[in-house]
């Protein structure tokens, strides 16, 4: 009787120690849900959701403090993905969120630019090159189209140019054909 008790409690202590060690050793840093949400968000860092960047919005979503339809650059597909991940109902864009726009890039009219560096400070991804009293320009490959540089510009020399369809970014269309029998 006593030996059985000892053996059982011994095993319990041993397993407890193993579990305790594993909990410390394989501890997950941060909130994995936030990272999953952040991976879905388009990383434009535009703040259209009302949060200062994608990560804060992801954190708010993980804490269930924000709606899933607040990210216009992510499009409807983004809402669908978030709905699936967070096990929520799909909600369309609407209310105080902007509707999604076609993807575009910022463009600086270099004749008008006065070199004030305000846009450089506003750009969340360092996609603007320039220096004080020097003409600025956008590095197209890095621009996310967040529009954050538009507001600070004192001479309104930045405009958004919609990315047009070219051979390099052209996609095969979803097959559509007539349903009427011949």
């Amino acid at each position, binding site marked *: 009787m006593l030996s059985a008790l000892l053996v059982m409690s011994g095993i319990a202590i041993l397993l407890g120690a193993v579990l305790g060690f594993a909990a410390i050793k394989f501890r997950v840093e941060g909130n994995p849900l936030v990272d999953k949400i*952040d991976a879905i*968000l*388009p*990383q*434009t*860092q535009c703040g259209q959701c009302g949060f200062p*960047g*994608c990560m804060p919005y992801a954190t708010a979503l993980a804490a269930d403090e924000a709606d899933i339809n607040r990210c216009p650059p992510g499009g409807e597909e983004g809402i669908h993905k978030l709905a699936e991940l967070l096990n929520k109902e799909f909600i369309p864009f609407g209310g105080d969120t902007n509707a999604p726009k076609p993807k575009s890039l910022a463009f600086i009219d270099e004749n008008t630019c006065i070199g004030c560096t305000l846009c450089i400070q506003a750009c*969340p*991804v*360092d*996609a603007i090159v320039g220096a004080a009293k020097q003409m600025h320009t956008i590095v197209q490959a*890095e621009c*996310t189209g967040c529009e954050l540089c538009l507001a600070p510009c004192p001479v309104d020399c930045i405009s958004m140019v919609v990315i047009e*369809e*070219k*051979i390099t*970014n*052209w*996609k*095969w*269309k*979803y*097959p559509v*054909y*007539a*349903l*009427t*029998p*011949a």
Partner: protein
Amino acid sequence: MKTLHKFHGGIHPPTHKTESTRTPIARLPMPAKLVIPFHQHVGNIAKPLVQVGDYVLKGQLIGLPEDGISSAIHASTSGTISEIGMQVVAHASGLPDLCATLIPDGKDEWIARETTDYRSATPEQVRKVLRMAGVVGLGGAVFPSDLKLRIGKHAIKTLVINGAECEPYITCDDMLMRERAEEIIKGAEIMRWALAAEEILIGIEDNKPEAILAMQIATRASSDNIQIIAVPTLYPGGGAKQLIRVLTGIEVAAGVRSTDKGVQCFNVATAQSIYRALQFGEPLVARIVTVTGNVKNAQNLEVLIGTPVGDLLSFAGALPDTDSSIMGGPMMGLPLPNSEVSIVKAANCIIASSPKLFPAAPPAMPCIRCTRCAEVCPAELQPQDLYWFAKAKDFGKAQEFNLFDCIECGACSYVCPSSIPLVQYYRFAKSEIWARESEKNASDAARERFEFREYRTEREKIEKAEKLAAKEKAAAAAKVEAAKTAAAQPIANAAVSAPQDDAQAKIQAAIEHAKQQAAAAKPKNTEQLTPQQQATIADIEARRARIQELAASDVAAPKE
């Protein structure tokens, strides 16, 4: 006799090859203008080297290959560049791309050409020559050949030369093998040398007995270990993976390259153009094109790159009911947006199409899961499942079912009793997946840049705070020092306002100092100027003064 293997599936569509093999290869008369696209190959677009108005010679480099995967573009004949701009090209999108328009002068005058003896050169030099000669895979994939001739991690044992030409209507490789077999064999030998391969296997479908014979005669004069192998006629037996399977029995699995298995595959026309590029220094400026379908005289033509498709059709005598044309074969070809687009390196065949020849497909019916598509699929996929996933836009699942192993041969659509345009669904799914992937990469890059920016801002803040703290500390230390000296000396009449006065004086002094500095400062780059430069500067100064004057008068004007 070599034992042949079988690949899965395959179909037997009517071949329609005899129409265009009755006459030898003819040369198309010089067209009135050539439109040469700068992007005719897989990879980066070539960088234009010419300007409007430039006179160019035949074979002159007009597009420089840019970074990594790219190829050169040449003038197809001598003449004048009349335009460089966006024009509609032979592409499924029907969108314009950068092209040079060349007006031939009729002389067809070659640029100076030089022979490269590959035996006395290094493979690296040969690859460079081929890159600058714009040699790309002429079987339709247009991948730069020099990159395929690089020896990677795995040694190449077998070089497969693809003369199968399995797609209906197309006969350009057939005619090339009949008429220029020696050049093909010599090209193959150059490739074998570059790859250090042991054997050359040339696979030709058994519906081309003349080509097989011509090639066999050509190999007789050549060194050993070259085999001409007749393979059974079965579409798509000319697919690289399929032909490798038939000839060697090697199955190239998903995500694996044939080179990993010691096999490299080239088209016969590519072999021929490699030979011409090295032996005669001729860049790829022309190719053999089959003109067939709804035409009076179906035949093969030697056509300059950039020739409008319409020229070929009218030369072959397109029948009046021709309403469109197809580039490539009826299975995998792409309908051309119009007959103005030009022949590119990928164009092996132009089929004049009429509603009678290719009637519109009957409306698609629902999939009945008969799995006939799975039976004929040469890549051993489950086309009915892929269709389902592509239609539902379930791209992850489609990828799981190896969508990217699909070679878009169209065998599935061909046998589908419901006439579903299956390949279109796969193409749609593939390009969506590619687009998503590049979007994902872009967003990952954006995240990284954003996070680095946050880190940098934070670091700058800390650095600033540290600097400030250090300064304050120094100031405090100085104060203590001052207090000490003040305590040591007899107390002067220290007015309460003194520190303030002191600060004001300091600011004043600093302003004075800055003013002096500004006055003393001279542009550092104005010493040792040539008189010419000084004259230019004087000129600019004068202009500036005039502008300032004008501006002043402009401002003054409204007052009057």
